[in-house]
């Protein structure tokens, strides 16, 4: 068995234009309510795969070294953040504001089987803070479609940031100037981030590039237009008769020319 971390992240795509999610405090409360360690250990069975950041540590330009699982706690607790937004628990223990329940529909797709179980774990964890979540398992195409027609509220997806070695292209399509992308932010715009991403397109100096990318990663972490849950680990089982296997995290090559059959 080979376990190889890959630049793909299980992440919640949020409709930041939704009346319950437009305030960053609500998005932070939902993020804080997720027990990432529990999901990594109990659902995915890959302890240590939990992450608070969109991009993996291997993409160091975009990874904030100073962020830990405790960093977000400074913002408050889910309860304090939601109370500050006017949400109160009703007699059934569910959050209510102006007679309206805090209800969200979370869509995901079964082509990646782990997404459905992670979605139900998140549903239970949000239930604990009083948020009612309806999980709908559908086709992956419902996510770009829901983004376009504005019907999407929350989606659990597995986003690949490593189509090419530099994730800038994906970052531009996900968080560029037009309020997000099909697989990125939704109804969320940050002028500073847009300008930074545009500047990066023309930046070749590695020191300057690192500085701007770090600033961008910090904005994404602070604003939570998407909530990361877990980093992907590719599990490959290799027959004993095969020698020379290695896995390309960017999934460009199988390195078949390096593999050979041997006697076990």
């Amino acid at each position, binding site marked *: 068995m080979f376990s190889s971390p890959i630049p793909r992240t299980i992440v919640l795509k949020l409709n930041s234009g939704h009346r319950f999610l437009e305030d960053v405090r609500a998005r932070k409360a939902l993020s804080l309510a997720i027990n990432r360690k529990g999901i990594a250990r109990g659902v995915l069975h890959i302890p240590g795969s939990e992450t608070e950041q969109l991009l993996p540590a291997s993409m160091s330009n975009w990874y904030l070294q100073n962020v830990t699982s405790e960093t977000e706690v400074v913002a408050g607790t889910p309860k304090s953040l939601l109370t500050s937004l006017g949400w109160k628990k009703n007699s059934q223990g569910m959050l209510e504001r102006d007679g309206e329940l805090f209800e969200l529909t979370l869509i995901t*797709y079964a*082509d*990646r089987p782990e997404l459905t179980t992670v979605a139900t774990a998140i549903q239970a964890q949000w239930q604990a803070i009083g948020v009612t979540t309806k999980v709908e398992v*559908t*086709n*992956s*195409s*419902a996510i*770009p*479609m829901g*983004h*376009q027609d504005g019907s999407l509220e929350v989606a659990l*997806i*597995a*986003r*690949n940031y490593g189509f090419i070695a530099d994730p800038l292209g994906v970052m531009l399509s996900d968080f560029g100037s037009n309020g997000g*992308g*099909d*697989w990125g932010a939704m109804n969320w715009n940050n002028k500073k981030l847009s300008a930074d991403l545009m500047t990066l397109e023309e930046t070749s100096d590695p020191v300057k590039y690192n500085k701007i990318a770090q600033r961008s990663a910090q904005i994404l972490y602070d604003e939570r237009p998407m909530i990361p849950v877990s980093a992907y680990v590719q599990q490959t089982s290799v027959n004993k008769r095969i020698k020379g296997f290695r896995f390309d995290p960017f999934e460009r090559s199988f390195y078949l020319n390096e593999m050979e059959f041997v006697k076990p």
Partner: protein
Amino acid sequence: MKAMFLKRALQLITVVWGVGTLTFILMRSLPGDMAYRIAASRYGQDNVDSNAAALVRAELNLDQGALTAYWHWLTDLLQFKLGDSLVSGLPVMDTVQHMLGHSLLLAFAGLVLSVLIAVPLGLLSAWRGNPLDSVLMGFSSVIRAMPVFVLGVLFILLFALHWNWFPVAGFGSPAYLVLPAMTLALSLAAVSNRVVRDSAKQTFQSAFYQFSRVKGLSAWQTFRQHGVRNIAVPVVAFFGIQLVSMIEGIVMIESLFSWPGIGHGLAHAIFARDIPVIQGAALVMGILFVLLNTLVDLICLWIDPRGAKKL
């Protein structure tokens, strides 16, 4: 005979039109956008985006009205054209032909096995009576009560994972055929053994059967001369009816065992909204159903020529 063929030909035309139209209406009424679904199947689950969907929509002219699309399909069908797959772009005829071969192999193996199981067990039940009859009938009820995929999963657990006798799923050597064919055979035999048993019991108790014993024929001679044909008519007719559940079972079994047949293809085409393939596969299944029923009628006629007036 001529009238029967004419009737069947008319049925065939009605089935082709009915199945095609119904599939068309059902597929159009499914929720979700076809362009996105097809794009997801073409470019991969996480790679589909609105640009890809727009390209697919323009390429396949998905914006045309339902009536126009239906009219195109109908005129193509009259020219025996089934169109091309929306996902792979390959002609539907080739895809369906390829899948049909595998399905027929599985169906034939399943049917033969089910006859081999059901006929001896049914006859044994009728001949020996209780307590064996009750045990066998109880056992067949248990098997029938189980959905066919549960039976398949149990077989995989026992014969593939626990004992390692046969491969879990897939296609290749004859070993791959064993588990799906056995699953299909058992689910079919669980009902047909009951029909064999009832038919045999009725024949064994009939006056003409008793009389042949009285007039001095041995048990075997009586069975051969007066039993086989009389028992066979309802049994063969029932196998014909059972073809419906076989077509049903094949969709499940092929998906469970990754058998590259028409049921497996149909399930994938539905997920992908590949309407020409769905229509092609459903049409072939409908045609197959009429043809097999005609074949069963002919066999029944051969066994019992008295039935000609009824057909």
